[in-house]
């Protein structure tokens, strides 16, 4: 075991940190705020993302052949940790980087890799994910979007839902039914869809936070070249499982952790704020138990993520046990946002914009946002099924 970084890795970390300090907008983290308007915020983040790419900070661990930096997985993690530590703007091409790219690296043709990977890195092409449907949530494999071959094209009909970034995306990877006559897992295919194709309608969905991060997407005779198929026809389920493993695994969890740690620091500061009589929530041992448990939760997430990550570093693959990471962080984060409101007390339910809201109302908002975390990327119920059946081998 060795939790230290090499001198070269430490040097890399300093470079990243210095670059971020020099290149983030002046006043970032104090006087500078991201735009409140969603579209403007998207544009701001996209600019930032392209700036990172221009400076050579995109795809740290990707092969140079696909536009990456050819670095190590450790460097990739250091880079993401530093982004999170600086509270840098979030990426907008998350789905392209984290899901499309590893899926294509594992299952795409060389032509597909050459065509798509560099433009993912440069954020020239933003991606969205076409998996869930209104009647196929937990039971993803029951999806009904139909993909039918017609000459040298496919024709797509149906509906997807919960499609984040659909309104901004140039591309979408779609899981659709190509053979309705076989058992449901065996008739699915994985295809790449140009969002500029005629026949696509996007309708935003309003969330309980009032935000509109995700959409319904309707397909009406949408024509897709056959070359856009990833893997073999009717082999889509296996490919989608690769995608989901990356969505749930340690590479997703470790950078997320740094942001959660920032949130916890902020909660500890609320807890330490003196009240009228000079006492503080942080002096109350019942509250201290919950704050300590959040700290412990986070440390367990970090260490368990590092154990998985060490296996990746050794070249081992992460399989269904990725569900442990996803289940853990989603549930611990929900507990943490509740602790945050508890610490803030009666003012806890105040939202951003209220002058009296503790931490600017961040936690009332995050409490609401966190409710989705145990649903998306496979609900907690589905993750527990996967762990029980595919990790522990319990019968279906």
């Amino acid at each position: 075991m060795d939790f230290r970084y090499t001198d070269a890795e430490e040097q890399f970390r300093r470079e990243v940190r210095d670059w971020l300090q020099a290149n983030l907008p002046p006043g970032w983290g104090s006087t500078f705020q991201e735009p409140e308007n969603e579209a403007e915020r998207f544009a701001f983040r996209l600019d930032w993302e392209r700036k990172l790419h221009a400076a050579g900070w995109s795809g740290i661990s990707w092969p140079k052949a696909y536009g990456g930096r050819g670095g190590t997985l450790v460097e990739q993690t250091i880079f993401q940790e530093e982004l999170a530590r600086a509270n840098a703007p979030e990426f907008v091409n998350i789905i392209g980087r984290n899901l499309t790219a590893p899926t294509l690296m594992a299952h795409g043709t060389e032509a597909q890799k050459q065509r798509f990977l560099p433009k993912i890195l440069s954020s020239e092409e933003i991606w969205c994910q076409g998996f869930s449907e209104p009647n196929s949530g937990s039971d993803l494999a029951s999806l009904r979007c139909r993909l039918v071959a017609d000459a040298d094209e496919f024709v797509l009909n149906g509906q997807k839902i919960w499609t984040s970034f659909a309104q901004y995306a140039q591309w979408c990877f779609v899981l659709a039914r190509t053979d309705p006559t076989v058992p449901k897992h065996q008739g699915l295919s994985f295809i790449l869809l140009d969002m500029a194709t005629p026949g696509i309608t996007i309708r935003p969905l309003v969330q309980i936070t009032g935000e509109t991060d995700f959409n319904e997407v309707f397909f009406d005779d949408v024509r897709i070249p056959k070359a856009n198929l990833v893997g073999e026809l009717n082999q889509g389920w296996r490919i989608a499982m690769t995608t989901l493993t990356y969505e749930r695994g340690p590479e997703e969890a470790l950078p997320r952790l740094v942001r959660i740690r920032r949130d916890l620091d902020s909660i500890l500061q609320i807890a330490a704020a003196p009240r009228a009589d000079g006492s503080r929530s942080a002096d109350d041992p019942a509250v201290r138990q919950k704050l300590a448990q959040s700290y412990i939760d986070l440390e367990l997430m970090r260490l368990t993520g590092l154990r998985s990550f060490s296996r990746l570093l050794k070249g081992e693959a992460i399989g269904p046990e990725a569900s442990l990471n996803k289940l853990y962080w989603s549930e611990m984060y929900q507990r943490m946002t509740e602790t945050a409101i508890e610490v803030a007390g009666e003012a806890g339910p105040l939202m951003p914009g209220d002058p009296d809201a503790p931490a600017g109302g961040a936690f009332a908002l995050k409490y609401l946002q966190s409710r989705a975390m145990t649903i998306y990327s496979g609900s907690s119920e589905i993750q527990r099924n996967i762990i029980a059946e595919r990790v522990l081998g319990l019968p279906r």
Partner: protein
Amino acid sequence: MNFDFSEDQYLLRDSVRGFLSDHWGFARLRAAGGQFDPKLWEGLCGLGLQTLLVPEAFGGAGLSLEDAVLSFEEFGRALVPGPMTDTILVSEVIARFGSDAVRADLLSAIAAGRARLAFAHAEAGAGRDPEQVTVVASQHGAGWRLRGRKILVPAADVATTLAVSARMPDGCCGLFLCSAADARVERNNSIDPDGMGCRVDLADVAAIALGEAALARLVATSTVAASAQMIGIADAALEMAVSYAKQRTQFDRPIGSFQAIKHKCADMLMATETARSAAYYASWAAAGDPGFGLAVAIAKAASGDACRLVCNACLQIHGGVGFTWAFDVHLLMKRGKVLEYSFGDATWHREKVAGLILPEVLVSC
């Protein structure tokens, strides 16, 4: 020995429920957009709710908190916003602790549906200890002046009179009445905009003192009413979850046939029913039982925990659609969240319980 309501009490509940189901509901709530709905207020006044606890001598029904508790539960279930709950509860302390002049003035205005009251208690700087009151009451001739800020005062912007908790020169806290028109009132940006919570700034506002005991009583009855509302919310969320679980199919089965959902629903029912017992009991104990303080703390702790568990589980059972504005789950969850942290959360009330049960033992050992 009878832990059940009387026929009259159920009749009142049924008339409130009937009115709300005919003339209110989540669609109307959404349409109101957090604004005061005069028809709702008038309709509830038409049922005589505002006079429930007003003594008969002042034109009221002269009933008790036990009679009112089922109405508060219905208010929770239907997410009734606005000043009715506080009007009912403040009227009781005016009747008990007000001078003859105050009673004559306010109680008849309440009975006539002209006065709307709001209880201004929460403060932003209190952290999780609702007893950290910093609004100052200072004596000014024969009367008092109030200075400071309150938050999340329900419907203060349509109230006529505010009941305000404030710290007196002797360091104790008491209850004061002032005209809402004298305060600067703006809406809070609350997680629950429909709850009409307001920020109230008091800059040397003239006030009448009702005293320490009045504040203690009003805090206790408000805590019971918040508990009852959370039970109503939990009950509605459970019903919504069960109904969705019966109808939504995945894996070719209703999701309610999966044990994970079934057992979650069973736990939701358990939490709701046990907390309901505590809220009902506290409403009975409010009539003078020496165990009232303990009953209040138990009711708030149990109903806060239950409401949190049930609302969270209800959203989880709905999956993605529960996270959308279009479904009603979040309306229940958001109101529940404000109530959960009002008048002290479950952890705070558990410490109250510990304080009340532990000394007894110490004496005996």
